[in-house]
């Protein structure tokens, strides 16, 4: 058992790196990234005119190069991934300068030691080597310079990149900054977390609070009219996609009848703005869990120990609620781990339909706006939750049921 847990735990980082690396590849190869987004925004017609000077037209080579550096597209895939992971140092802070005719330049950069302050660096070129010195003539730790030539450079002066080498990735507990709001990704996630937790918490609570009693009731009267009709109903509910119900609810209950607000989520009217989205999110959620409880209970009712208990004269009620139910709940408890991920990410189709600013919508937006740091941050969170949840589930099951041994399998 211990070996098994250890092995599973050892595999977590490996799987995690696998997931994030594949996702990272997607961010690299999906056509149209943040650069295109920025350029498309400024020159296409679906926007208002203005007399003020503002960016228009295609990007100059200089601008394109800076955009690439900003979004990390100046590096190879593996290098960029290693930087994101924090396994390789990246340019944490950078600026480009042009050398004057004497091969010298000056750059003032943010001070990495004293927050909010800045200091000057002098750059000089001798041959192919760039030297960086501070005002007192000494080099500064971690600050480096490198040539940064441009294709089709209209200017002749040498372009130099001055940058601070630092590890700033996931291993250093940094998820980077959102490329749309410039806020740390973690802040973005944190600000959306309460709403997602609210919806996730309710749906988790309701799912179990309704499904388990229902399942028990169905099992006790199995194959009676209640059991059969409720199964039928559950299958019909299962057949209604949540977002479809969302569209219907939004149209009739919000827009037509004004029973519920249509303007997204609002903490002040938390109840009213929760009912409809939550019902849509949950419409198909009871079916599996209820039948799961019912069938588990039925299986257990036919086992030997129940027969023994009955023979001993224990009341039916006592058998069901004390013995059978406890045993049937074990596998249900095991699904809890898997639900952790859902709890975090929410249902973006519902959040999209009802315009609820939770993590699901954040994920969707990050995808549409090509906000890769946020996207990867959310992925990190959800895949970690999933990986840990799986282990927790296994452990739960193993802990309560000594018959299950993972060692020999796999």
């Amino acid at each position: 058992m211990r070996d098994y847990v250890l092995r599973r735990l050892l595999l977590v980082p490996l799987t995690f790196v696998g997931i994030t690396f594949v996702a990272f590849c997607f961010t690299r190869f999906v056509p149209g990234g943040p650069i295109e987004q920025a350029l498309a925004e400024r020159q296409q017609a679906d926007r208002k005119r203005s007399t003020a000077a503002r960016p228009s037209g295609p990007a100059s080579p200089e601008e394109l190069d800076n955009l690439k550096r900003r979004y990390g597209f100046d590096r190879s895939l593996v290098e960029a991934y290693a930087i994101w992971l924090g396994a390789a140092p990246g340019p944490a802070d950078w600026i480009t300068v042009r050398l004057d005719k004497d091969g010298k330049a000056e750059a003032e950069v943010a001070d990495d030691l004293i927050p909010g302050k800045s200091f000057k660096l002098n750059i000089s070129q001798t041959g192919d080597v760039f030297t960086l010195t501070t005002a007192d003539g000494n080099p500064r730790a971690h600050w480096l310079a490198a040539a940064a030539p441009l294709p089709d450079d209209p200017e002749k002066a040498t372009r130099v990149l001055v940058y601070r080498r630092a590890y700033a990735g996931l291993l250093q507990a940094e998820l980077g900054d959102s490329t749309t709001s410039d806020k740390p990704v973690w802040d973005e996630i944190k600000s959306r977390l309460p709403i997602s937790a609210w919806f996730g918490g309710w749906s988790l609570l309701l799912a179990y609070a309704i499904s388990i009693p229902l399942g028990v009731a169905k099992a006790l009267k199995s194959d009676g009219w209640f059991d059969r009709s409720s199964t039928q109903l559950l299958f019909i509910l299962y057949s209604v996609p949540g977002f479809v119900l969302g569209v219907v609810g939004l149209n009739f209950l919000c827009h037509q009848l004004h029973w519920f607000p249509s303007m997204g989520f609002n903490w002040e009217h938390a109840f009213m703005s929760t009912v409809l989205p939550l019902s849509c999110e949950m419409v198909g959620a009871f079916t599996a869990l209820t039948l799961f409880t019912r069938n588990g209970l039925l299986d257990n009712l036919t086992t030997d120990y129940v027969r023994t208990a009955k023979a001993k004269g224990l009341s039916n009620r006592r058998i069901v609620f004390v013995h059978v139910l406890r045993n049937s709940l074990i596998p249900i408890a095991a699904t809890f781990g898997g639900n952790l991920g859902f709890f975090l990410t929410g249902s973006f189709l519902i959040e999209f339909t009802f315009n609820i600013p939770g993590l699901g919508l954040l994920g969707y937006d990050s995808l549409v706006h090509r906000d890769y740091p946020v996207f990867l941050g959310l992925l990190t969170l959800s895949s970690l939750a999933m990986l840990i949840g799986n282990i927790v589930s296994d452990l739960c099951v193993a802990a309560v049921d000594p018959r299950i041994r993972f060692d020999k399998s796999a």
Partner: protein
Amino acid sequence: MSLFDPSTSQRFERFRQNRMGWWSLLTLVTISALALLGPLLVGNRPLVLKVDGAYRFPVFAGFISGRELGLKIEGEPNYRLLAEELKRNGRGWLVMPPVPFAPAEVCEVMPEVSRDAEGRWHDPRGIIAEGRIFTLNADGTRRQTWTIIAGRPHGDARLFAEGIGIARAKFADGKVAQRVPTTDRTDWEPQGSLRTQVPSPCPPGLDGHWLGTDESGHDMVARLFGGFRLLLLSALIYLPCAYGIGLVLGAAMGYFGGWFDMVSQRAMEIWSNIPFLYAIIFLASLLEPTLAVLVLILVAFSWIGLAQQLRASAYQVSARDYVTASRALGASHARIIWSHILPNCTTVILTTLPFSLHGLVFSLSALDYLGFGLPPTEPSWGELLHQAKENWAAWWILGPTLFCLVGTMVMINSIGEALQDAFDVRRTQK
């Protein structure tokens, strides 16, 4: 376990006992069979066409140039209009399919307008509150248009020559108030019969659109029918692919176990965590976004669950004595998988099939609903839902689409439930 096992007929009986599932199966099979008839039922090419004594079958023949039929156009004629023309000049007749519209066809509903005693213009829906009435040239382009407000010409009126606006007048209270250019040669009286265009989405009942049209002007019945055909087609691509991959990998994993199983499990764990909207955007830009491509992407993301279930079942089987025995007798791996493992997976396949279909219908609709799916010329229920969300006054889009989608889902799931009953498989796993 063979197909003609006595247990098979027992299962079949049990399946039939679940009446909801049985009827769902019959209904679904019937609808699917009808869907296979396709353009014979729903389409804009006639089943039979007789012109000048010659019989033609455009629904099978495909494209027929208008010139071949003695018309003045090179392209394909609009057969619905041709039918009227043939009736008028007695050159022949034609039989259209029951729903004479193609799913991708754009229909413009242009009823004639009439004037009531008070001089207000009416279309079949009533007084024109705000809209345009116009006269047409022979080629179907507009010749003159008037803006109608509260039944009377008010605002803009325009003259077109060769499809391009050449003059404009402004009406106030039914009279010309201003002309552009001022030296106007026309007296702004209608020349020819006056029509109006009922904007899309057009409500049911006009021009033979039983359920009206959607926002792009497609006939709703044709669209829903086309959407079902599309789902059917996608299921035909999806199921063999998803089950093929899932079966082979799952069986192999369960049978071989060991490091192969370990590595495949991790790979699946990794793959199942990739948000598939990204994959859609990515792959759709590399390949032409057709139905096949979309479905194959769905396959790429859905074989995992199947493989996992099949793995478990294969694992159980491979641990049984007879498998060990046949391995000891020197049977090859391929043979064991083929004759022992795969047959035992039939139960899993059959009982999960409806739920895979459920997933497919859900995913395709959700993608089209979000706008990441097929091009809008392809009929799709998800796209109709998207339109319903935007045009919530158009109940004839939402209602039928909802009915079809939920109805199909209910039938699929009922079959699934019945199959589970029949195979005595209970959901003890989520």
